[in-house]
């Protein structure tokens, strides 16, 4: 395709230079998937702009050519949110990786979207940190975190990305650049910032991000308690939260996950136990100590005969290494797996776990469970063998049934991974037509021509009516795949 001479290719090459425009199938294949590998689409072109101005020029060129585009950070997302679109442009933001300002007197950092999550905390250490901590934090980018409203293990206490972004410079899909929110809080007017964070790249692309950072807690205390069953561990979680304690993190692993992670992390966890509960308290020393004693007592009361308190930072890191190894470790016990991301009200956890066990038995497949127990965010890992004919489809169906169970319990189809392409089909189970239509109103306000990350989030393709400016037939419309909304 190189040098095919189309106007868009030429224009993008002029913007980023020939080195940073990828046109060969061989190069483009690098970007055919994000962290969810079962989906792959090779984009028509990929560009790697070096500055906000180059991003703006790329978006403007796409707008004029009527070609859709997808923004991508590190590509570590787990819902196919950064999956390219066929015949579209992939805008890769990894070169926008500068930290632009650190203002600790005001607890603010300003970064470009390609800066990694871990780099933000590193830049403000040792006195401050950036709380949202997805498991992929070493590689995932802040731009991606903004798109997905990323959470992590500590969000029960500290909140999500949306609670830490104070301002964004964004390029809208028509190529306009504007600042929403700012370095300061509470810009009067619609909370466009709150609408943008978590919009999965469908409203525009952020080129500059102001973040709030907070002081590192005075002390951190961590324990792991082992139980005979996830039900017992779930009761312990409820008792801890009911006592008015807000742990920094409270994570659970089931028997299958304990076995898999122990093989990888060698933390000396008792293989065969029904559940492991990792509880971390942080904060002021006096309050932390008082509550930690309470948490240990609750774990024993709820049936744990094995409570291990981390004696030093190395041991704490080992506890966390074991927890964070859960996804990769699963590869040791199963050739393939689907990760789900359902959420349930915390009090329904024990019942939902039983339901998942029943479903797994019904399908004859193994489902391992690892989850953020404080906020009821489950990550069931549905294990299967792609080499066995039909098993992948069966596993996918089971994963869908698990999400149905989460919705029946009053929960959500996704807590932190996003809808992307993977959970589009479940959106209509969670939201009614009027709800989806309201989502579309927001999307149309930002992106009336449907250029930014089309085909994501919404269950069926829809177009916007009353497109301002000259009418242009949308490619989906031309292909008879969608009608004007």
């Amino acid at each position, binding site marked *: 395709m190189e040098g095919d001479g189309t106007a868009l290719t030429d224009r993008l090459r002029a913007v980023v230079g020939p080195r940073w425009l990828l046109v060969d199938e061989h190069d483009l294949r690098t970007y055919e998937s994000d962290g969810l590998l079962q989906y792959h689409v090779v984009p028509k072109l990929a560009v790697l702009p070096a500055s906000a101005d180059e991003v703006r020029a790329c978006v403007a060129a796409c707008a004029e050519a009527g070609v859709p585009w997808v923004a991508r950070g590190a590509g570590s997302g787990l819902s196919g949110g950064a999956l390219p679109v066929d015949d579209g442009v992939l805008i890769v933001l990894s070169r926008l990786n500068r930290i632009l300002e650190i203002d600790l007197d*005001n607890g*603010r950092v300003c970064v470009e979207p390609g800066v990694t999550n871990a780099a933000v905390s590193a830049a403000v250490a040792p006195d401050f940190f950036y709380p949202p901590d997805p498991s992929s934090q070493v590689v995932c980018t802040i731009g991606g975190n903004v798109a997905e409203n990323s*959470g992590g293990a500590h*969000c029960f206490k500290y909140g*999500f990305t949306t609670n830490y972004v104070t301002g964004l410079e964004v390029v809208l899909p028509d190529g*306009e650049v*504007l*600042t929403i929110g*700012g*370095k*300061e*809080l*509470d*810009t*009067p*007017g*619609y*909370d*466009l910032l*709150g*609408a943008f964070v978590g*919009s999965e790249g469908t409203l525009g692309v952020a080129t500059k991000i102001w973040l709030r950072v*907070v*002081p590192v*807690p005075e002390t951190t205390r961590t324990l792991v308690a082992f139980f005979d069953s996830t039900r017992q561990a779930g009761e312990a979680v409820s008792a801890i939260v*009911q006592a*008015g304690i807000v742990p920094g993190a409270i994570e659970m692993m089931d028997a299958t996950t304990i076995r898999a992670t122990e093989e990888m992390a060698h933390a000396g966890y008792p293989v065969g136990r029904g559940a492991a509960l990792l509880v971390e308290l942080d*904060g*002021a020393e*006096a*309050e932390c100590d*008082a*509550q930690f004693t309470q948490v240990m007592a609750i774990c024993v009361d709820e049936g744990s005969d094995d409570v291990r308190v981390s004696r030093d930072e190395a041991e704490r890191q080992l506890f966390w290494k074991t927890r964070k190894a859960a996804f990769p470790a699963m590869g040791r016990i199963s050739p393939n797996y689907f990760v789900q991301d359902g*959420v349930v*009200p*915390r*009090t329904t956890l024990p019942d939902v776990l039983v339901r998942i066990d029943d479903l797994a038995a019904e399908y004859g497949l193994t489902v391992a469970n690892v989850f*953020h127990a404080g*906020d*009821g965010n489950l990550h069931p890992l549905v294990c299967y063998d792609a080499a066995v004919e039909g098993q992948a489809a069966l596993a996918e169906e089971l994963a869908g049934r698990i999400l149905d169970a989460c919705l029946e319990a*009053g*929960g*959500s*189809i*996704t*807590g*932190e991974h*996003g*809808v992307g392409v993977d959970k589009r089909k479940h959106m209509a189970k*969670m*939201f*009614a037509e*009027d*709800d989806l239509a*309201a*989502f579309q*109103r*927001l999307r149309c*306000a930002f992106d*009336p021509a449907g250029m930014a990350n089309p085909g994501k989030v919404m269950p069926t393709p829809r177009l916007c009516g009353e497109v301002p400016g000259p009418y242009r037939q949308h490619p989906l419309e031309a292909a008879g795949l969608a009608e004007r909304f």
Partner: protein
Amino acid sequence: MNTTSVVRPGSLDEAASALRGLSNAGARVRPAGAGSRAAWGGPDPADTVTVETSGLAEIVAHNPGDFTAVVQAGVPFAALQRHLAREGQWLALDPPDLGGTVGGLVATADSGPARHRYGGVRDLVIGITVVLSDGSVARSGGTVIKNVAGYDLGKLFAGSYGTLGLIAQVALRLHPLPARTATVVGTTGDPRRLAGAVAAMSRRPLEATALDVAWRDDTGRLLVRFGGMTAPARAGDAATLLTELTGATLDVAVALDDEPLWATQLAGQRGPAVVKVSALPTDLPAVVAAAGAGGASVVSRAALGVSWLSFPDGPDLAERVAAARAALAPHATVVLDGADRVADPWPVPSAGVRELTRRVKARFDPTGTFRPGTYVGGI
């Protein structure tokens, strides 16, 4: 006024059909709760129809084990807090309350000292149900505290002042009520010393529930509040720290019975004219100077940089407010109480934000039913 100028729907369905009818008839509509912030956002034209939420006043669900509640918009804020307190919980928002409703609180995104620790309305609304001008009833979010499915319309409607649609119901994240509270107070007459104390304390991992400043009559106070079983001890430690960090230049005391102190802070967010300022913590001396020139007192969520200037009444009130806003530019300011006494209570948005605001308004309320022309940028 004519007989149809107030509508009180008794259910979501009634609200939907009333709004469909009103927008079809080309009416202008103003959603209203108890009217405790009636002046905010400025006046509506005389022929505006008020849609009151007093018939939507049910606490639909309180799930103590999940720390969540689902509440209709017309529920009085104080009644909700009393209800939740029976289970040792609260909605961690503490705006000055003069009898307002939950819906009015969400629509104005008002806040109090607990904002420091728990965030604002946007951070605690986990689901929202709105009625749009075409009568559609739309819901976003859910009833779980962690959820990224679909767009977050709760944030869009928080602080929208009734200009996008009627907020009918919200799902809320709750928190445990602190077992005890205690507050450290540092007093000084020097704004720079006060700002220095704020800077020093806000860099510490105090886990305070509030960190406020008050400035009135040439005297400034830093108030740091602690909650929890060990609150008195932590306040004592913080008092020692504050004395150390400021070289004993502040008068430092600990209050165990601290409710009156915080009631005074809340009162400072109300007045004949109140200007809310969005700035940074290090701007505090400039905020104090701008207030002093207009005879206003200051209440500041000091670690957040958000401040309220309360102006005493007088024939030159509008001029004093305008002068303070001009002095604080380019920081965004909005006039809350007394909004009906100034030309435009809102700051002027950038051209890009104004255009996007217009587009959002046009998509959600294409008939221009909800308070047209009253919002930021004349939208």
